[in-house]
């Protein structure tokens, strides 16, 4: 089993859209996949129309695999299950503050999932704290969507420094450009500078697209309603590019 995550300190960069579409393509290629929505806003759960259980269970999330597995729900797609987000997830950081070995906790809990799943995709909230550190420890690869703007460039640099400072393996970070508007000079220039500075950017670029924005309306992966559109092709090619990286990790 491999664990990958979609992470960025910055909000609105296309994390959830990536997590949803990548999980979809993984499942579609026959890989038993579990998407865990860690973001209390629950956007990826919303895209798959999965409602969380009513009861407040966030405090049990890190207790044991047995607790977690009770909240697994099937998506409408074969091979893809989901653990939907709950508003109580907003307290993760405080909770983890009380645990020993808090950063290894998520990894340990997820181990139990390897009986059923080949791939776990974590959709993370845009914060940096104990939860994100758990995610860094638990993930074999961390995919980071980056909008090619000055601010995003700065955020990515901060993330790298954070990894360096706390001894996380920087080779687990895999950035890719997201919400790109090729007609914008700034986007083009930032991409050039960043590619020359970091050699680990993925080749695939996710364009800024109305089709991706429309996911909220359709509440389904892009492939189901905009099959032949560039955005869909971009996610598919992103997935194709991820496969060898995930295998190698």
């Amino acid at each position, binding site marked *: 089993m491999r664990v990958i995550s979609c992470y960025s300190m910055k909000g609105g960069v296309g994390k959830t859209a990536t997590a949803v579409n990548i999980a979809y393509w993984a499942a579609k290629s026959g890989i038993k996949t579990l998407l865990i929505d860690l973001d209390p806003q629950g956007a990826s759960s919303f895209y798959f129309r*999965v409602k969380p259980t009513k009861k407040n269970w966030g405090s049990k999330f890190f207790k044991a695999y047995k607790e977690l*597995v*009770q909240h*697994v*729900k*099937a998506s*409408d797609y074969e091979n893809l*299950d989901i653990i939907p987000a709950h508003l109580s997830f907003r307290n993760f950081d405080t909770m983890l503050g009380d645990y020993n070995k808090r950063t290894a906790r998520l990894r340990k809990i997820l181990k139990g999932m390897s009986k059923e799943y080949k791939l776990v995709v974590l959709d993370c909230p845009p914060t940096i704290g104990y939860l994100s550190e758990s995610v860094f420890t638990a993930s074999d690869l961390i995919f980071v969507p980056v909008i090619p703007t000055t601010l995003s460039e700065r955020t990515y640099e901060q993330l790298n420094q954070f990894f360096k400072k706390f001894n996380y393996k920087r080779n687990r970070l895999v950035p890719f450009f997201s919400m790109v508007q090729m007609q914008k000079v700034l986007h083009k220039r930032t991409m050039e500078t960043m590619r020359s500075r970091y050699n680990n950017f993925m080749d695939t670029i996710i364009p800024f697209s109305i089709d991706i924005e429309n996911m909220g309306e359709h*509440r389904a992966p892009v492939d189901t309603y905009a099959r032949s559109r560039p955005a869909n092709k971009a996610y598919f090619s992103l997935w194709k590019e991820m496969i060898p990286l995930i295998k190698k990790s």
Partner: protein
Amino acid sequence: MTELQAKHWLLPDNKVLRQLESSLKTRFSMQKKPGNKLKYQLQDDYDWHLWHAGYRLFKTAQCEFRLESPKGSICEIAGENARFWWDFPDGEFKNILKRCIKLRALGEICRFEITESTIDLLDTERKTVARIKTTTFFTEDAETPGQQFLSLIPLRGYQNAFNKALELCQAQLNDDAPEPSLDKLLKILGIKLKEKPTNKYGITPSEPCEQAVLQMCKSMFSQACKNEAGVILDTDTEFLHQYRVAIRKARSLINLMKKAFSETTHSQLKTELAALASPTNPLRDLDVFLLDKSYYQSLLPENYAPGLETLFDHIAKERQVAYKRVVTLFKSRAYRQKCKTLEVLFSSAPSFETESSHKPVLTMAKKRTYNRYRKICVLGNEINDETPDADVHELRIECKKLRYLIEFFSELFPEKRISTLAKSLKTLQTILGNFNDYSVQKEFLAAHLAKEKDAEVIAAINGLIAVLHQKQLQERARVCKAFAEFSNTSIATEFEQLFAQ
């Protein structure tokens, strides 16, 4: 968490389905997905090796192959004419085929058509919470009525919705049916399962020896004849191989138990069987050589490849000639008459012309086996690294006879102990067999050398002979150790306990 299980019902007609739909509509929104009619072929080899190993292989009209097992299914795309394991792309699919069907070819067991349509049951968010699936089987001729199943499939995490739907289904439909399965479909199509081949002949320990041996020969001979059609169609090389194995077994049995027959009968049976098998020798030799193509290619350096390729072309042509001869033979009247004669001989009542013919078959089998074992011990102990090859060949032949004796009469002895003995003998036999195979291969190539004029081909043949000779020497060096292992005391005790009287 207890996993929810899908429920299935036999669907009597579409009227019931419509009634069910309208009652489901009261609780759920529904989304219908009509299915296409898909044509499938169930494939397997002649012996149903895949089936017996728990696999089901389906081929679609688009040449998609799907191999299903309880663990899941694997898909592979291959050409229209893919029949052997080596016709498929590398991967798990190919490995499973190689392991199960070996040199056998895949063929059609039956054809059928399936329509699967689904109705998604949705909640207020329009999320699917359970599925209704209807599976309809059609046989190829449209006149046979298809059977229709309805399944209610749960989705993980939506137990309540499933229970509600289950209630509604149960109100409309009769008792649950087991899952729609292929085994059932085959029954509808009138296809009989092919049993796993056994090495049991239905003999009893006290049966008179002659009677038992005749019965066994009859079964071996009919086994041989079943392969004729496959040989004629040239489906795969195993048909001829199995044909020859069965005839060789019958011949060996008659020779090993010759005291059960008068001299005339024994020599008649022996000659008739030999006459049947020997015309197929050339074809088998050529088949064996061609099957080992990639092995031979691996033995020689790259620059010999063109010569080797030409050699294989020549042999393949020769093989076609030999094949046509066998077909002509199998179709000839003379051959059919020979077969008929043997059938009659094996089916006739025992004539009890000799003293041993009356004796219980168990007594005779024990005696023969134990004598053979002791003979092997004497022969084997005389072999050292300098002994001439002829003696090693003799040891091999004696071991083969012993193996046959153990296997032929295995049903008269405890199964587990016999299989352990057979296994230890097999280890020795493999080394002796390899040693012999190298001789045979060298002879085959040497005999072919006379027919070749092309310098490249001659070089390839000579190269192969040299490599095979070296391999044979290596194998020869392993014989003494292998025999020492076989002749250890625990095996000796086992032979004594099972066969000494």
